[in-house]
């Protein structure tokens, strides 16, 4: 199976309070200040990569690759580091579409990915359900529409049926919906897919239990990562015009939390819950 996994670097959510908004100057649109930020791969994309690796290997002998996982990212040259990390974790090759962040929106990424799919011809596009910076949750759905492929969102577990179809448990309110999707398809995943039994795929024996979470990049693979192919493309190579549809008009910090109130009696509490909070 050949799987395309789109990856995005995001500002480290643990340092999210360091994100600053640059004051708009000279008629330019307001912009998030990115200098001094620490970057890491979007966690949901890491889950997608882990699931893709599990679908293309025997879990008891992971060194022998049985399929191909291609990672792709959109961004400037520094993003090569994110791709190298994915290559060290086990991806087979990488593509970077050379753009700057302010040239992008979800729709443009989806259109460019659709063109890339035409070139790469994967059996499956596996991606995170959203990125933890802007939380748009759009690209998978848009991509499926542009490609005319079936899509499954919020996959919590994936069973590979002979590389032709996937049986997917997707998260829904109060439970799980089980669906079967014919390949090729676009699937986005949520965090439960990296549970020890999140992905079932021959030839991994059914008894095999993966470690919980995403795998570590082992030392020998880190040393090999530079030798794996990393191709750089331009939007023009994909025949896509750099014209984002979303315009950023402004940024606002969420309102500060108001101080709490101390109540004296239970009766007062009940009254407030009933009449002020209106939850009773």
């Amino acid at each position, binding site marked *: 199976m050949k799987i395309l996994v789109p990856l995005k670097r995001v500002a480290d959510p643990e340092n999210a309070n360091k994100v*600053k908004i640059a004051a708009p100057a000279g008629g330019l649109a307001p912009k998030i*200040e990115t*200098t*001094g930020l620490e970057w890491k791969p979007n966690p949901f994309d890491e889950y997608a990569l882990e699931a893709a690796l599990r679908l293309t290997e025997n879990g008891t002998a992971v060194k022998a690759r049985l399929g191909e996982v291609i990672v792709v990212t959109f961004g400037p040259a520094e993003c090569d*580091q994110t791709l*190298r*990390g994915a290559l*060290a974790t086990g991806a087979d090759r990488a593509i970077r579409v050379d753009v700057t962040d302010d040239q992008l929106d979800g729709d443009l990424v989806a259109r460019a990915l659709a063109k890339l799919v035409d070139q790469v011809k994967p059996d499956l596009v596996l991606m995170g359900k959203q990125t933890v910076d802007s939380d748009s949750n759009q690209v998978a759905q848009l991509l499926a529409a542009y490609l005319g492929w079936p899509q499954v969102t919020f996959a919590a577990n994936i069973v590979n049926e002979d590389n032709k179809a996937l049986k997917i448990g997707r998260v829904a309110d109060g439970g799980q919906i089980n669906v079967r999707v014919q390949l090729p398809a676009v699937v986005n995943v949520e965090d439960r897919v990296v549970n020890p039994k999140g992905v079932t795929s021959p030839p991994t024996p059914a008894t095999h239990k993966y*470690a919980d979470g995403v795998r*570590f*990049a*082992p*030392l*020998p693979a*880190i*040393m090999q*990562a*530079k030798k794996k192919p990393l191709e750089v493309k331009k939007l023009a190579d994909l025949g896509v015009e750099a014209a984002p549809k979303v315009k950023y008009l402004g940024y606002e910090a969420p309102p500060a939390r108001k101080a709490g109130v101390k109540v004296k009696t239970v009766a007062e509490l009940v009254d407030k819950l009933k009449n002020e909070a209106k939850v009773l």
Partner: protein
Amino acid sequence: MSNAQTAQNRYKADLREIRFLLFEQFGLGELLGKEPYASWGEDEVNMVLDESYKFSCDVLGPLNSVGDRVGCHIENGQAVTPPGFKEAWTKLYEAGWKSVGVKTEHGGQGAPMALSVAVEEFLSGANVAFAMYPGLTVGASEVIDHFGTPAQKELYLPRMFDGRWAGTMCLTEPAAGSDVGAARSTAKKLPNGKYSIKGTKLFISGGDNDFTENIIHLVLARVDGAPQGTKGLSLFIVGKMKTDASGAILGPNDVALGGLEHKMGINGSTTALLNFGENDQCEGELVGTVENLGMPQMFKMMNVARIGVGLQSVSVASAAFLNALEYSKERKQGPNIRNWKDANAPRVAIIEHPDVRRMLLDMKARVEGIRCLIVKLARHQDGFVVNQGKDDAAASYHLGQVDLLVPLVKAYGSDQSFRICETAIQVYGGVGYTKDYPAEQYCRDSKIFSIYEGTNHIQSMDLVGRKLGQNGGANLQAFLGDIGKFIAENASHPALGPSIKELQAAHEAVGMTAMRMLGWFQMGQMSMVPVVSTRFLEMMSELAVGWLLLVGASIAIEKTKGLADGEEGAKDRAFYAGKTLAAKYFAMNVLPGVKLKAEVLGREDTSSLDISDTAFATV
């Protein structure tokens, strides 16, 4: 588990500091991309640092307090290690973090030692008790690699480097601790060329485990008829299990686990009493082919192990410092001293209190100082490897500095480690004494570092008795020469001038004291030497630390000039200011003590020799 602290990672490291030492201060970049490190580039180094740190925090860190609270015990004659250790061992070898510095011919990545010590710091810092098992395994493998026969290398090395088999070093016996030569274990040559091993070994770290199918003990024993003392000792490879030449396990090798020690710290590490040959069925192989070479062979492993103890020391001390620092920013207590008269003044985080700041900066300077010693040692080892066979003078210089630094790294590092951990508890206050916070475990774990692998007094005698005069004194001359050069070049440094003056005074004091001790040797005043050797080791270490911190500060000051204004350069600016002030603190508060110690030492006070045994106390 018996209390609130469950399987949670408390380990943290300052990767910016590690990168500063590797790339900005000790020039790791000069080695990369060239033989024998051609496969290493800056990207690989950075990814290895990030990933091994992540591994240490995710896999080893959560088991640190588990190992401490649960400890090890014996079931059916077999050690049972704490829950999770077996899985961690498997993951460690899958991830390859024990092969960073291992030669490529053994499946390793042949990294510069400067990098592998950084990785080791993470592994040990996250869980020092766990890290002992793989640490000793590498140490034992290296002895076999260095001295073993081709057949021994072929049988043991692949299995020990990939984690199927573990390794230990067995020197100590009930009546032979620091006095190794008193060992009574015996070896009798058998018709098949092997030896029948008989004896009891004590305090064997990693002496048993429940995660490898075999353990390779390197055992010091005396062949029948060999001379007494250290000269008659030979080193033997003794498996826990008997194997055939293909490595297949045939059955037990009459190595009985006689007991496990109940210790103050490193409770996750088995400390075993092993009985070899109780039933005359224990077979061992001589390391190499020549008998009575046990001590020089074991010294190869001891050297590796002593550097390893220095690493453990900085690892645990650094974790204690960074945890105390975090707590000091969260814990609110009392008003700022400026508002001491105002009962309604806002409560402040304790990091605002001057004495807490003093303790934090003291810990920072010492942690970073002993780390400098280790990275410097490692960088000299790399310098030796690069120049070996090409530039004899350079190779000899680098090797000489490694030899000279080993006792400093081991003894000064470990003495400081315990004291830094103690200071960390003090920063926490009362809760630091409880098991809800990690500082007390760090303190208990670190105490052993000044004792094992040769007590710190043995290190000081090694320094004074062997290392100062080694190469006709050339190693010491080169060491002092390097410092003298830095002093001369920076005497009028606009920011560091007063600190350099302190360094100069310490430099003179150490040189003078070395000469004084040489005089004692020449005049037969031998009994003075052990009285002062520990103090001298401390003086020389403080001189080295003061120097290396000031070198770092001078680099930091230069680099600050090139930083961007405002937000963009803020992080680096704060980092470099920290380097500079830690160096200044050490120079102004610790280095003056070197001169004082030299003066004290020069008085040749013999009270501790003059006092009779009965005069110590009346009980």
